[in-house]
């Protein structure tokens, strides 16, 4: 069997080394107060737990060393791992810290623009360097782009169309048809059926149509039935949006 493997190794390329660039969050430390570090780290993670879950991380000791604190890497790694982050490297550490890291199986990276071996020797000189502090991670929700659904055929009575994003209909929507979207709805013809936009609660969603004759219109659960529509907004191009929880129907100009 081992001979077979050798044969294969000779005849085919089994692996190849390549270089790739990754964007990895870097944790800059400014204190050796472990209690404070733990508290703030927990707080940050709480703001965006999905973002930080199993996220790779590089620890940057440059600033904390410059300020003269001496951090025990073993204790620090233990603290960070407890929070669920995966440490993939360390940089800016002194000789002892780098050694500790390697013993823990954590790769040592060079601090930007500098050789880590000379780091400790030139500690004072480096103080003039303005090391870039990474922008704080905002607890914003990660937006996923949902493609727009485009329908070119008439939507007939009894048919139902659901779109996870925006819904664009290039033909008429018959009475008794239902068009539903989590985003906006555009109807480039007559809208006679029911149109429900922002069904997952998006109050910014709008409905646009060329000829309003709808049975029902709704945005984020706020609705109007045909009877509630005044003659002033019927049979013409309008847009419908939500303002202070009430539906506003206006001409498209």
């Amino acid at each position, binding site marked *: 069997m081992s001979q077979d493997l050798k044969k294969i190794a000779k005849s085919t390329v089994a692996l190849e080394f390549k270089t790739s660039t990754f964007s990895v969050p870097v944790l800059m430390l400014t204190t050796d107060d472990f209690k404070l570090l733990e508290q703030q780290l927990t707080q940050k993670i709480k703001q965006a737990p999905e973002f930080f879950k199993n996220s790779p991380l590089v620890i940057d000791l440059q600033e904390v060393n410059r300020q003269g604190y001496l951090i025990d890497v073993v204790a620090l790694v233990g603290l960070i791992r407890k929070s669920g982050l995966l440490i993939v490297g360390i940089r800016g550490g002194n000789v002892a810290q780098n050694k500790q890291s390697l013993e823990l199986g954590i790769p040592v990276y060079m601090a930007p623009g500098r050789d880590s071996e000379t780091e400790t020797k030139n500690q004072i000189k480096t103080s003039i360097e303005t090391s870039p502090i990474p922008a704080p991670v905002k607890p914003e929700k990660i937006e996923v782009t949902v493609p727009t659904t485009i329908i070119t055929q008439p939507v007939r*009575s009894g048919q139902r169309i659901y779109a996870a994003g925006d819904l664009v209909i290039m033909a008429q929507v018959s009475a008794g048809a239902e068009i539903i979207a989590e985003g906006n709805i555009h109807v480039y013809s007559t809208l006679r059926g029911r149109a429900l936009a922002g069904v997952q609660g998006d109050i910014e969603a709008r409905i646009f149509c060329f000829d309003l004759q709808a049975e029902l219109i709704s945005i984020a659960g706020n609705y109007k039935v045909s009877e509630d529509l005044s003659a002033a907004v019927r049979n013409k191009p309008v847009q419908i949006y939500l303002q202070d929880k009430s539906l506003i129907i206006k001409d498209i100009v």
Partner: protein
Amino acid sequence: MARVIVVTSGKGGVGKTTTSAAIAMGLAKRGHKTAVIDFDVGLRNLDLIMGCERRVVYDFVNVINEEATLNQALIRDKNCNLLYILPASQTRDKDALTQEGVGRVLEELKKDFKYIVCDSPAGIEKGAHLAMYFADDAFVVTNPEVSSVRDSDRMLGLLSSKSRRAEQSEEPINEYLLLTRYAPERVKLGEMLSVDDVQDILSLHLLGVIPESKSVLNASNSGTPVILDEKSDAGQAYADIVARYLGEDVPHRFIDDKKGFFRNLFGGK
């Protein structure tokens, strides 16, 4: 290549069977070998309209169940030897129809016939579904009133989503609008939807308008398709429709109120 035409509407009593009989006869009269199938199992009517009710031995369900061959069940029309009728069973219900069985019968008919007209039952259930499932062309029969128009719209939705062509993402079924029982004078009075109103709602290619006519009832009672009554307006309207379906450019008639037109012409009241 044979074409399967479904005559459908959703709503009952709008003239599906009258239309099926008329266009099947029209196509056969023009030299195309045509079969017309009654899909209204349990409410058999086509044989009456075609005047062949006394010659029914075997029916569509017998053929599906392989209790009879297609040739045994097909009835040759007495007026036109290119037209054959496959009657429905009166003692069974729609559950006797199976998709596989209907498909098999249609495939067999396609070998021998140019046009196969499927007379759909009312509703959107099994019988109507199977009548339209294998169609290449659909004649949507609509009366100029709101409930019929809405039901036709529903049927059009099913044609574009639940048919074989839709399910297999083939070229969609050709859909045509047939407006029946049209009375221009009542449209004028605002008692009836106009051709434009119906087309606006359905946005469908208009194949023709059949005027409200006494000749239709007479034809039904006598068991001769109304298209054979060449003097009647309804008969002429169906002949026009067959011609248009076959690609001829025939101007539309029976849309305007003729009496009103003459009255205006001669300065009457």
